[in-house]
């Protein structure tokens, strides 16, 4: 299944792109997504430290993804 992953701020600059498309297997979790991204993009924090949002909600690493989900790697926020 296709999952779009958005990258922001420092992660976007590390990756050199703001968007990746991953091909994951049905039943794959946020943890699988994080491992796939860190394998593709050197220089990110370790996969188990990545904070991930799915469809605009923060999700734990055991959250199961569905085809067409929009995911995002969220670096430490610093708004305000």
């Amino acid at each position: 299944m296709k999952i779009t992953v958005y990258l922001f701020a420092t992660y976007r600059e590390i990756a050199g792109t703001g968007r990746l498309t991953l091909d994951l297997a049905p039943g794959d979790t946020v943890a699988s997504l994080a491992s796939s991204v860190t394998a593709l993009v050197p220089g990110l924090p370790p996969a188990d430290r990545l904070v991930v949002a799915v469809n605009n909600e923060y999700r734990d690493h055991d959250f199961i993804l569905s085809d067409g989900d929009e995911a995002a790697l969220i670096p430490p926020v610093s708004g305000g």
Partner: protein
Amino acid sequence: MIEITHDELNAAEVEARVRHPGAGAIVVFVGATRDNTAGRKVLALEYEAYRPMADEQLERVASEMQERWDLTGVAIAHRLGRLDIGEASLVVAVSSAHRKEAFDACHFSVDRIKQIVPIWKKEYFEGGEVWVGSQADFDPIGVRP
């Protein structure tokens, strides 16, 4: 009541949104870009957001405020893009019958925004730039309001 914009923020306009005949207290917070960080001179700043998630998380902060305190109004505006020193990046206005609620809710909102809203700040120094944000403190799922 929630606004994320590239335009200059107008604190008076945000405050006007929370006026209410039953409001005895209005507390307004303005977050402004400082000319230094830990003694290092900052030249300019840039804010980036993940939208519409940032909008939704700001709405969530406003809802948490309304649930926790008896308020007559809440308005939040966050600026994006490049800002000069002294410009407002965030304005929160809260009104309530009594001042303690308004102060507590307003202070809470700023802390909470800095915990969960996907907005990032880059500081431009002479000869360098850096995305602000501490990996060690960042736990938007674990942290409770």
